């Protein structure tokens, strides 16, 4: 397999049904899907077809499942967006939660700067104890 074939193959799923690899890294020597797919990619490359066009051709033949990962358009875009949207939502919730918790924290009756100084002093003393 040439690096050029591997480059395109890495974007295509091996649909042999027994592995979850890509056409570019499927290790099965006699794989009934990856081997012909690699030959097809090589032939198209010899005919100066671009990577994007090769992928389009294979997707036209095999369906969108030929792609190793969901396309970034239409409904499949959700596959990419949702994990990060979940993190963003989690962060929003967390900031709301922290704000709410802080609002309910015991009110300091002394100047915060004084408190801060005491905290620093305690930490320095503790660090000294550790040494």
């Amino acid at each position, binding site marked *: 397999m040439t690096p050029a074939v591997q480059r395109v193959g890495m974007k295509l799923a091996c649909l042999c049904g027994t*592995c979850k690899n890509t056409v570019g890294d499927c290790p099965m020597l006699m794989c009934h899907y990856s081997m012909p797919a690699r030959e097809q990619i090589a032939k198209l490359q010899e005919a100066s077809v671009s990577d994007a066009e090769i992928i389009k051709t294979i997707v036209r033949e095999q369906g*969108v499942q030929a792609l190793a990962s969901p396309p970034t358009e239409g409904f499949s875009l959700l*596959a990419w967006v949702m994990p990060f949207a979940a993190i963003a939502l989690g962060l929003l919730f967390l900031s709301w939660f922290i704000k709410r*918790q*802080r609002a309910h924290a015991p009110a300091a009756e002394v100047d915060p700067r004084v408190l801060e100084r005491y905290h620093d002093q305690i930490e320095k003393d503790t660090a000294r104890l*550790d040494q």
Partner: protein
Amino acid sequence: MENIGALAILLAFCLAVYAAVASVAGKLFKKPFLGASGERAVYAVWILLTVASGILVYSLMKGDFRLAYVAEHSNQGMRGIYKFTAWWGGQEGSLLLWSWLLSSYSVVAVFTNRRKLRNMMPYVTGILMTTEAFFLMLVTFVASPFQVLMAGRGIVDAGDGSGLSPLLQYWTMVAHPPMLYLGYVGFTVPFAFAMASLITRQPGDGWIHTTRRWAIVTWLFQSTGILLGAGWAYAVLGWGGYWGWDPVENASFLPWLTGTAFLHSVMMQEKKGMMKVWNIILVSATFFLCIFGTMLTRSGLVSSVHAFAQSDIGNYFIGFLAVGIAAVAILLLNRLDFLKSEASLEGVVSRESSFLFNNLVLLASCFAVLWGTLFPVISEWVTGDKISVDAPFYNRVMVPIGLFLMFLTGVGPLIAWRRSSLESLRRAFLAPTIAGAALMAVLAAFGVWQHPYALISFGLCMFVAATIVIEFWKGATAIRAKDGTNLALSMVELTHRNTRRYGGYLVHMGIVVLFIGFTGSAFNKNRTVEVAPGDSFQIGRYQIALANSQDGENSNYIWRKITLNVKKEGAAIATLTPERRFYKASQESTTEVAIRRRLREDLYLNYAGVSKDSQKAVIQAFVFPLVSCIWCGYWVLLFGTLICLIPPKVRLQYPKTEVVGIARKHAVET
């Protein structure tokens, strides 16, 4: 014999139902004898399931090919150990193993608490036995391992069986499924205690203290099961992969993530009385994800090479999950008043906040994996199009999340409880940051900048490792100064004083080593060649020559080995003998790879077949840098987890923030 086995399972099912009903009824109607008989029924269930399991194992070992299960999953030529492992090699047997493990856990939980927690235990028994009854219902009525082969009205003896899949005839497969099941099943116990605590409105954190060790041990079993599975894939599948983001692999990873979040989050409840609702949600999510994972392996919901034969068993699991989740949600909503926090978050930059972030990222990882696993099903349902969600998707989504998690692993222990000042942060972060940045600079100079994720990962690993080493160093030097002992003894003393904290740091170190192993995959090399005897080829620093080939046969399979002499920089360093096997019963061929394992890199040789003209051997050669760190990381993780389980020398009392004045007023209002 099989009738006794089937009867034992049926009786166990009836007794599990009785135990669940009697223990709860005894409590509700104040009839202690009912509760006591319910608890005794738990022991009876275990005895009956041990008998049933014993009969199945005996049938497998003896080769009773009248039983469909024995005929499908074993054969005469298999080695004894693999005949034994056929117990969990198929759907029916593995469900029996699940049930037996749960009954064993239940016996331990009931026995160790026979004089404690009398208010909660009836409900704990009820929940454990309800889950047990569900699985026994499946084993009794849906997937019995004691079905006999029938022809018309007569029982047929198949004479021999089709054998366990050759891929499963490998030593890690002996331990991988039981370990994973011990993890899956084990989380039922903390879940049962959590629910019982909610039902009985137990004051304090009793359920957490009672189940802390359960949760840690269960988590360790899950980790061990996952790593054994990875080890099996690495050594058996012939391409050196240890994780392929297969749906069934993902199913084992999901409860591990929520379980890890739970183990961190309970510290907030123990030390600060916070996150009570969250901990209930986490322990419930972990339990339900264990059930979900069990379902995913058996239902055919998603396609996987690891799944058992497809069946309609998934519908029962969906029913159980739906009822269970609804019941927990209702109970939780009903008990919200009982789960109020006893303290508030005092500083944004605090250990508490870092735990919150840690939980967020672990849960986000869990969601991302679950989403990727189910998205093909969702997409097909919504659009009608089948799509593939393979490794490239997970690598792009999970690698940044994993790196952020690694960053938090380093940051968390550096931040003080309640709040940290900027000065203390600067002091704590300076050395680890310099160490991480220095390593990144050195690696970048050696060309690693071409792999930015790998560069960041190595830098973060160094950062986290430095934080851990500094923590040990500071503590040990303080003890050495006071007691005058040497540094090694001081470290032992330090760890013994607070086993949970320092054991936890060791677990983190194990994760660091694991990450180093994962990162090494960015530098993998591979080459496929056809060679005749006497020919040689080069991969990486190795020159490999084919010496000869040998053939042979035993009762189970036909084999052919090739001998490969390996040289490095002209010097002979090893002789490796990869092998191909053809299993007679299943008519399947497999490869037995030869691996030269070293800490720096593994040389991995697979005898993949013969050339079209049958004159040459086809060899796939791989070099996997740092992959041994994955297995070493596991041992460090195991060691750290075992330390966590040792009782500390100094019994720690966690003073909780007292809720007073304005805060108390707010707490009451909310």
